[in-house]
């Protein structure tokens, strides 16, 4: 403690900026980890809360995937003596002029046995189910929603429905709390039969919520209902929907873990670098301490305690930063999941998990301590006599370099071997980590080598300043290599993520060219993924009759559970699709697979379904449906980006038979030769637009939408890239600040012998540029390797599609000016500090 006060504190105070920069890496790493996970957990918790609140006293829910089931199932369920109350539900998230609204279609007669509608005010008419039922436009909204939008009883609220634009009347306002606080209070209750009409659901329900008699256990009730309904139906407690949601949000969790680990890894290098430099700078101090009787253990402990303090400070700041970031991230992730998956949730508050926050704090501290272990050991092993001799402390011993090179070779070999056995996930990820370690171990040698290579170039540009800048790098590789390693890792991450994005866009573009080639798309929402509303099949006949329309494809997409996971089932006219938008097989015989699927004898599986759910060509899939379990083999595997969880293409006839559902999500329209898109679009709108909710999108609209969605998805990647670039810049600033401080005497001497201020500035700038260049070169190289791993991780564990390797040349080219510019900007402060400091003080340094 005394040593800490006498030795560490004055040093830290003197180098406050450097300490702050050092902790920045930990702040970012911990912040990203806390931010991403807290956001994920908050969204997940909000979803669970919504489920709980909406469920009321519901013990079990009967579902049959997204298509729902016929009304007769309700009577069947109600006939079971074990069931105390059973009430049908339709749930949909609808975009209104007043924001997204979760609409719960319920049967007000029976639903009150399951849910409490605590209505506001004393007006009995509000509580009059007869008026509510008699008027199909009735809505009950929450007080929160009403106050937010200035709604009162009998206020009118427009909504676009399958019956066209309709104005709804607020006939009840629920008091806050319980059901009314679900989905952040943006909830409305509608009569279920009105909801069927307005959402175009025909005579179907999404699910049945039920409560059992007191003497019936959950297990008994579940078993009896399953036996009663058969395999096409799922009978589960409401909480199981939360598990499905988490499966959906899994990708985000994995991506945030990777980013956090990377940020911490980079932060660790910054800390290591700072401590390594601190040990070098304080060699004489350590020497004196040792000469005065301080033991090696005391010196080691001193540095570890310094690191502990820096780690604790940085981690605490990181936790705070992360909490701030989580608020924004939660809204972002929530938005994506609502748009893409139609999962109704909203995280208005943060779900702060003490275990997560404690874990993140510990992770930051351990990272900081781990980073300081080697410098602390180096400090402890300082020979007091040698330490008091000044100069040449930054040089790397040839033995040390050789040892590192051998270790790097061993890691590279192990990484290569891991690639051979990469089918095993653990071995694959071990290979990934080893490739990074190889690069880190090689960084000092490569930095030295590149610095030497750069010397003539720099000297060619400015003989004095260039030589001085290069020599500074060559003589202080320990100081530079840590920064270069951090920069290299950051830029490798940028290249890997940028490459992943580029490869994905390329692959997506290929798919869009083949699969999304209709001229027009008639949809129920501008958002193509929304499935809350459906069209009757009869609209297809009307569309075919529109002049200029050559062919209409009816598509019904529904999420069902196959192999225990949520999968998108796409029912379409396979023969027409084969003729118009034939996807080439990744596996399987093209002619045979389309023929068998068209006949309803098989399905086409998407590549990501096969990868993520462990399917294989020829495997017979069991697809539970209300009409009985479908047992269909996979006739072919195609590259399809319809859904991140994987998709199955099935013939529309087979789907209609099994699900008793002839509704349509999207009509794909091919126009006759010479027909004008805009004219046909207008004809469709004129013919059907006023009668029902209908959007006509052009091919470009759809492509733009898919690209926008992909941009949204990669939005998270861009955050990661920004973090990586920021860490890289911090690394340069840190290294240069250290470098200037370290060379104050040298720079002072230069000024004393007549060196111009401008020359010193140029020296610092050139040194910065050289660090930036070396980091850039190594980063772009390592990025090429990391991109391979990123694509593999994406294929194996994220989206399941082989998107192909495509190096992001544009990103690499864009990075060059960014990093060199950042290096220059980072050098401005230290350069000014070098020329404006006191000459006497500088000459006294060390």
């Amino acid at each position, binding site marked *: 403690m005394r040593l800490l006060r006498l030795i560490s504190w004055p040093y830290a105070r003197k180098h406050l900026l450097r300490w702050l920069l050092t902790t920045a890496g930990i702040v970012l790493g911990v912040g990203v980890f806390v931010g991403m996970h807290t956001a994920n957990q908050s969204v997940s918790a909000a979803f669970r809360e919504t489920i709980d609140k909406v469920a009321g006293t519901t013990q079990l829910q009967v579902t049959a995937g997204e298509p729902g089931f016929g009304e007769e199932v309700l009577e069947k369920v109600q006939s079971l003596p074990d069931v105390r*109350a*059973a009430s049908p539900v339709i749930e949909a998230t609808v975009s209104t002029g007043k924001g997204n609204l979760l609409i719960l279609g319920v049967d007000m*007669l029976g639903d*009150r046995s399951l849910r409490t509608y605590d209505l506001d005010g004393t007006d009995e008419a509000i509580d009059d189910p007869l*008026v509510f039922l*008699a008027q*199909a436009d009735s809505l009950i909204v929450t007080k929160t929603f009403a106050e937010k939008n200035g709604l009162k009883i009998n206020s009118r609220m427009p909504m676009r429905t399958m019956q066209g634009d309709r104005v709804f009347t607020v006939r009840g306002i629920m008091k806050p709390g319980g059901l009314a606080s679900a989905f952040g209070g943006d909830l409305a209750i509608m009569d279920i039969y009105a909801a069927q009409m307005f959402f175009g659901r025909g005579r179907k329900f999404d699910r049945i919520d039920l409560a059992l008699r007191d003497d019936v256990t959950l297990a008994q009730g579940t078993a009896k209902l399953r036996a009663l309904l058969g395999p096409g139906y799922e009978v589960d407690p409401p909480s199981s929907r939360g598990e499905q949601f988490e499966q959906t949000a899994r990708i985000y969790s994995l991506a945030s873990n990777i980013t956090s680990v990377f940020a911490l890894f980079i932060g660790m290098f910054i800390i290591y670098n700072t401590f390594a430099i601190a040990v070098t700078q304080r060699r004489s101090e350590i020497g004196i301490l040792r000469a005065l009787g301080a033991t090696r253990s005391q010196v080691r402990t001193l540095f570890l305690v310094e690191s502990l303090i820096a780690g604790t400070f940085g981690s605490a700041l990181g936790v705070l930063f992360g909490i701030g970031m989580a608020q924004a991230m939660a809204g972002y992730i929530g938005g994506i999941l609502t748009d893409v998956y139609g999962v109704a949730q909203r995280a208005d508050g943060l779900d702060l998990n003490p275990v997560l926050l404690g874990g993140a704090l510990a992770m930051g501290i351990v990272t900081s301590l781990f980073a300081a272990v080697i410098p602390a050991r180096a400090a402890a092993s300082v020979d007091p006599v040698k330490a008091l001799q000044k100069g040449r402390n930054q040089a790397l011993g040839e033995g040390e370099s050789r040892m590192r090179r051998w270790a790097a070779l061993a890691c590279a070999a192990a990484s290569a071997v891991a690639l051979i056995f990469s089918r095993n996930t653990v071995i694959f990820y071990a290979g990934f980590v080893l490739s990074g370690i190889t690069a880190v171990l090689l960084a000092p040698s490569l930095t030295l080598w590149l610095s030497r290579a750069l010397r003539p170039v720099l000297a060619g540009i400015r003989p004095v300043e260039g030589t001085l800048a290069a020599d500074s790098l060559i003589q202080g590789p320990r100081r530079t290599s840590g920064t270069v390693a951090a920069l290299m890792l950051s830029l490798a991450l940028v290249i890997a993520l940028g490459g992943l994005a580029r490869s994905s866009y390329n692959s997506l573009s290929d798919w869009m060219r083949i699969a999304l080639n209709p001229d027009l798309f008639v949809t129920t929402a501008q958002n193509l993924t929304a499935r809350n509303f459906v069209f009757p099949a009869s609209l297809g006949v009307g569309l075919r009759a529109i002049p200029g329309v050559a062919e209409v494809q009816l598509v019904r997409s529904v999420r069902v559970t196959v192999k225990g996971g949520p999968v998108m089932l796409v029912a379409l006219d396979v023969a027409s699709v084969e003729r118009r938008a034939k996807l080439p097989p990744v596996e399987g015989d093209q002619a045979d697979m389309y023929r068998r699927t068209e006949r309803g004898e098989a399905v086409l599986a998407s590549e990501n379904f096969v990868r993520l759910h462990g399917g294989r060509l020829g495997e017979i899939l069991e697809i539970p449906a209300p009409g009985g379990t479908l047992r269909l083999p996979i006739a072919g595997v195609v590259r399809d980006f319809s859904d991140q969880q994987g998709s199955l293409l099935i013939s529309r006839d087979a789907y209609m038979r099994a699900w008793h559902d002839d509704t349509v999500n999207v009509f794909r329209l091919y126009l006759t030769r010479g027909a004008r898109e805009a004219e046909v679009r207008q004809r469709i709108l004129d013919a059907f637009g006023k009668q029902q909710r209908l959007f006509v999108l052009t091919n470009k609209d759809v492509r733009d939408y898919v690209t926008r969605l992909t941009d949204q998805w990669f939005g998270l990647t861009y955050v990661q890239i920004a973090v990586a670039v920021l860490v890289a810049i911090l690394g340069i600033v840190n290294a240069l600040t250290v470098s200037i401080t370290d060379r104050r005497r040298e720079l002072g001497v230069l000024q004393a012998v007549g060196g111009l201020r401008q020359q010193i500035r140029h020296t610092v700038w050139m040194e910065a540029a050289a660090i930036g260049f070396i980091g850039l070169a190594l980063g772009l190289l390592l990025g090429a390797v990391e991109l391979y791993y990123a694509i593999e991780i994406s294929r194996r564990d994220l989206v399941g599609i082989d998107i192909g390797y495509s190096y992001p040349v544009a990103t690499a080219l864009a990075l060059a000016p960014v990093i060199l510019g950042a290096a220059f900007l980072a050098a401005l402060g230290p350069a000014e500090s070098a020329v404006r400091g006191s000459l006497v003080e500088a000459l006294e340094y060390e």
Partner: protein
Amino acid sequence: MSKLLAAWLLAASLAAAQDPRQIMQEVQRRQQSQSQHYEGTLEVIGHGSRIATKRWVFDRIGAFGNSKGMLRFTVPAEVKGVGLLIVNHPDRASDQWLWRPNIGREQRIALQDRSTRFFGTDFSFEDLEERDVAQFDYKLLGDEKETWKLQSTPRKSSQYTYGYLWVKKDNYTVVKVESYNKKGLVRAIDYRDFELAKGIWTARTIEVTDVSRNSRTTLKYDKLEYNVPMKDDDFTLDALRRGP
């Protein structure tokens, strides 16, 4: 004279026997008619003594346990046309369907929903049923000056576990009913303003009190008629959909 004597003898024998089932069978017999028509006015007196008024037209064909009823709301305007078809059965709970003209479809009222309030009134859907006396067990609890107090226990599924009935001795009309579940008193129904219509003593005012909600509903009968000609075809799902 002989008829009068016979009736007196029957009444005397029933009164003397005090057999609860016989009492109730006599109640049912005296209420027997081939059909019924009335226009009802409902007044729901809720919290703060606020009164909500609704009107309906009711037709019934057949008698206890074998009857069918059709109820259509006429007032207020926003509920006009809403209908309810009740098909009573001698041996089980009735079937009930609701017709909603606004969305053009009927909805079956599930058995488990019969205990819910009948559209904001203090009646439940079950209270609208006409159950045959054979569906209950009876026990005579008291023989007061003007009334008998009986306990009825439903044999088939019901929201009520038992009920108390007060039957007037002079004309065999039920003047009060209290219905209980396991938790206690749920509803109390008072029958008032009796009038003789086509030989049937009929309460022109029925007041239901929902004990848990502390609210009252009164139903007043207007234009009451018995045994008017009606057709079975007017008491079907098609008729419900068709409207008045």
